[in-house]
């Protein structure tokens, strides 16, 4: 029955995956790609190298703590047997007591140091992964739909900390799991070799345990991660569309969608935990029995009840107690390693999407930050040529653009008209180099648009960041004087808007430009264009949200902005298209005029 469930879940997963592939077309989702787990493992190993000195130092400190533990056991055994024999002879115990204190201090200090070292190493590795991830995520401008913001939040806020946990625990635990039991065995054999043998007999449980954990845990963790990602995307999408959902009376059904996803996440997390708990329980059982055997052997021998051939008949009191005290310590690093091993399964599952994003396997399309790194076209206006450029989106029968032939001479402004959905935006994305045509090519001067210096985009829905208006205008550009800022504001006819804001240029705006109307946001975007030195512009419906008066007042500044620059301007407005030197019309992906 369980198998049946597993099989059904698999097929559901596959269906989900297929659907996602349909959904994204050629684009690949952050969590959707699944390279071999081996790739993720080797990626983890490579990435971990940046913190290796810290992890090794932590392991060394752990080893020191192991030595201290052996000492604690030895002196404690001496104290106990001494107490049993001599009652209250405190003077004879002074040496044992101070030895105990010193060893105890060594254990405490080295464990503390090991924790700090491992945490410092993990922090370094985490910061490095985060930095690369951010560069890649934000740089991947050509394919805004590839990685959703929800997935990005999951990756940075959830998956990277998981990797940090792994780095903090695993390598250190792996070294300790080998070295500390060896150390304890080395101490146990001279004291009571039978105990040493008993402990060694219990050792095979560790690989068996790891095999059990490894069998199911990785796949389970992966499913859990996928569910976290799915839940976060679903919730973010619904939050952003909330007022529409309310207007449509769809809140009840959408709440059930979220409830189902949340319940599914609980079930998947629970499945991951079950395996982890089972593995640690098995280890606990074995160690309990082994310790019990040691205790029974020690007790019986101390009693003198056991007369098994070959086994020593009597055991020194102190040696016996010492061996007994060491037995639990022998299993402690093994248990810790088992927990860390589970963390590793978790980390491999978390690393897969991140690794495929940062170091895509050969042949897979890379999410590159090329556009971001490219310089802007600023010295001269380029000539742009489209040569039978064709674009198809997945899931749609008709090509979004079919066989577009166009030449835009340097310094010319091309107006693009046409009904909604005819392909205007797609044409602009191809010309700007954000989208590579499936067939044909698009050249800026003689370079493919996707590799050429980038164009400046004035979008349909300009994006305002949380921050001051001045920051939003300069977009972090240094050395823009207030005078130049005010010039651009004047040209974009924002002066009165800025004057009306409570703190003028230093007014803080919220997400999506809270505090400014759509028209004002659009004018901020136009002012940004005035501040830029770019000579190649892509302008997408610049006046879509502006009323007649503001639009008319903007035509002249826009003409001035575009003068001497190469530009593509898409618009429905005759007044805006009048700015262009030449106007073409796109209908159903085909060029007219």
């Amino acid at each position, binding site marked *: 029955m369980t198998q049946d469930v597993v099989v059904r879940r698999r097929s559901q997963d596959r269906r989900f995956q297929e659907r996602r592939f349909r959904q994204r077309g050629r684009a690949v989702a952050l969590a959707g790609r699944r390279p071999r787990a081996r790739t993720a493992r080797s990626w983890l190993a490579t990435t971990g190298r940046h913190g290796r000195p810290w992890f090794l130092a932590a392991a060394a400190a752990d080893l020191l703590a192991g030595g201290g533990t052996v000492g604690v056991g030895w002196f404690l055994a001496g104290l106990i047997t001494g107490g049993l024999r001599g009652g209250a002879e405190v003077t004879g115990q002074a040496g044992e007591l101070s030895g105990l204190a010193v060893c105890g201090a060594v254990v405490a200090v080295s464990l503390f140091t090991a924790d700090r070292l491992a945490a410092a190493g993990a922090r370094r590795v985490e910061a490095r992964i985060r930095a690369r991830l951010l560069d890649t995520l934000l740089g991947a401008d050509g394919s805004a739909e590839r990685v959703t913001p929800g997935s990005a939040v999951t990756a940075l806020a959830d998956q990277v900390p998981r990797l940090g946990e792994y780095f903090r625990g695993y390598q250190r635990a792996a070294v300790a799991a080998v070295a500390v039991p060896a150390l304890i065995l080395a101490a146990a054999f001279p004291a009571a070799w039978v105990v040493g043998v008993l402990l060694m007999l219990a050792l095979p449980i560790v690989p068996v345990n790891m095999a059990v954990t490894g069998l199911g845990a990785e796949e389970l963790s992966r499913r859990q991660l996928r569910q976290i990602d799915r839940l976060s995307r679903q*919730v973010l999408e*619904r939050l952003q569309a909330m007022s529409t959902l309310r207007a449509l009376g769809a809140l009840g059904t959408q709440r059930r969608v979220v409830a189902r996803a949340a319940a599914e996440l609980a079930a998947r997390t629970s499945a991951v935990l079950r395996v982890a708990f089972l593995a640690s329980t098995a280890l606990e059982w074995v160690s309990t029995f082994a310790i019990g055997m040691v205790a029974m052997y020690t007790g019986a021998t101390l*009693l003198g009840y056991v007369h098994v051939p070959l086994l020593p008949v009597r055991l020194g009191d102190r040696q016996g107690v010492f061996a007994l005290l060491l037995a639990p310590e022998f299993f402690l690093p093994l248990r810790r390693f088992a927990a860390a091993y589970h963390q590793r399964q978790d980390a491999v599952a978390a690393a897969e999407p991140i690794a495929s994003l940062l170091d895509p396997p050969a042949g897979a399309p890379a999410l590159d930050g090329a556009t971001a790194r490219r310089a802007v076209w600023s010295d001269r206006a380029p000539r742009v040529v489209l040569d039978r450029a064709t674009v198809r989106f997945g899931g749609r029968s008709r090509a979004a653009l079919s066989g577009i032939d166009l030449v835009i001479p340097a310094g010319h402004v091309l107006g693009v008209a046409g009904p909604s959905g005819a392909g205007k935006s797609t044409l602009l994305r191809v010309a700007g180099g954000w989208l590579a045509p499936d067939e044909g090519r698009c050249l800026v001067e003689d370079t493919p648009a996707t590799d050429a210096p980038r164009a400046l985009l004035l979008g349909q829905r300009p994006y305002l960041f949380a921050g001051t208006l001045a920051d939003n205008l300069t977009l972090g550009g240094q050395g823009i004087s207030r005078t130049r800022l005010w010039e651009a504001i004047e040209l974009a006819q924002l002066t009165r808007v800025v004057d009306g804001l409570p703190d003028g240029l230093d007014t803080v705006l919220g997400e999506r430009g*809270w505090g400014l*109307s759509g028209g004002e946001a659009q004018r901020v975007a136009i002012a940004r264009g005035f501040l830029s030195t770019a000579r190649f512009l892509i302008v997408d419906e610049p006046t879509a949200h502006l009323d007649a008066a503001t639009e008319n007042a903007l035509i002249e500044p826009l003409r001035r902005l575009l003068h001497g620059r190469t530009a593509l301007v898409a618009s429905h407005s005759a007044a805006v298209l009048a700015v262009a030197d030449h106007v073409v019309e796109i209908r159903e992906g085909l060029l007219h005029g």
Partner: protein
Amino acid sequence: MVDHETPRRAEARPFRRLLTGLLLAVVAALASTALLGLAGWFIVRSAQSGLATTSPFSWFYPSAGVEALAVVRTTARYGERLSTHRATLDLLARVRTRLFSAASRLPAARMRGLRSGALLDRVHADVDTLDGAILSVAVPGVVCGVVAVGGVAVLAIVRPVFGIAGGVVLLLALAADLGISLGSRRLGERLAAQRSAAAARLVEAMDGRAELASFGAVGLAARELRERFDALAVPRRNLTAREAAGTAVIAVGRVIALGCVLAVGTGLWGRPVDPAVLAFVVLVTAALFDAATGLGSAGQAFAEARVAWRRLREVAAVGFTRPTDTDPDTDADTDADTVAEAVPGGDLTLRDLVAGYGGTPAVEITSLDLPRGTFAVLTGPSGAGKSTLLSVLAGELAPTSGSAKFGEFELPVLDYPRRVATVTLVEQDSGILSGTVADNLRLARPDATADELAQALEVAALSGAVELSTEVGPAGAHLSGGQRRRLAIAQAYLRRPRLLLLDEPSEGLDATTARVVLANLRAALPHTTIIAAIHDRTFAHLPLVPDTAISLRPDSDANFAVSDCSISTATGHPTP
């Protein structure tokens, strides 16, 4: 199987699981304590018997007892962890859903103010933090309480002074742990605020990355985000340090308690006890502190969970304050959205209506009457109050004063289920969910047949451009602006409202398409009162003949340029 359960049983399930887990936890802890005590006593007694070989002593029963206790402990702990974690996860899933419901009741303006990224972070991280309240506070708290009472009682039976020493030192250690954790609330608070701010910034940057890239500001944004996420390590480290300090305090307490017990037991202070009994006492004392160690991080976990809870309540509490809603979402299992009947409707009558945001009137209408089934166009420049008026009619914005009646029903105070069954508002920036076109249309009418959906596409002049099975991409990214617009109109058509409010329906559409769509709507919904807010400029180019055109003009004495801002004080008056 789960589906056939009664809701009440399902509701109680996590709590039953939690109770089972707590019982098992107590069993495990008691078994563990008994195990340590028995083992200590047994070993020393064995040693004594061995030293004095004449003592008649059976080692079989005690050792079998130790093994049995060990098995009980391990098994109970497995069951405990499984059931408490499952119960916690189920409860958290419930909190997530409730939070989403609460967010769905936020007024539109407030929703826009809350950054969606920050809200998402709350749904995830804050809810996750709540598990600490159960797993790190409640469970170890109960365990520690039971073990402490039982252990101290047993110690006191052996000799009252042992019980007193163990109990007092334990209490002191726990008090010190609590003292350390007091300051962590502020730290937790800071961490949570920083984390959600970072997530919000990340969402913003991801949304705006095409523009960021074109302006070469990607590196800056990445650096800022990196700094924000790296900065989270500082409060995190401090919290960890406090947690370690709390655990250390308990460990010190253990050493002190053991020292006291040993000093008394060996006769350093008072009368010595039998070594076997002493071993029992020492190990029970140790077990007492073992149970307390589980509480070492309780203070931090509790503080963090409290911060998270407060932040979640901020969202939820705001959500509950909406007065005109007869809360469609109080119970996660009801679906009041679709069951309500539309109100009969009739003429739309506005009298002395004043409305605006933040106390500043954006629109003022002295008197306006629209007979049932009128197709009215609301024109005017930006900032004239067109969207504000539509929000009032849709019940999304409470008017400052005046009345807006639809038939006999006062629209602003109509309860949500009936309101949403009667009125549909298509906003300027309508939201779209990933999935197919059909998925999105079914948001409006879940039981619609394929024919009805196809008809809706026909009405919105979309049937040539997309198919029902077309994937729209995340937030409709695969659709053009005009297609998104028409999809929203198709959704509104499927609602078949008595009052249809369209905010800039022609946005992103060319004049011909816009006219076709509006004419289709009119023909398809002949009895519906339709009000379309359209820019002056657009309206001038639209070959459209509405029944009425209402022109909202900013006050003559108000400065036009100021009235162009949405935060302005402009007031609009209808001119007939």
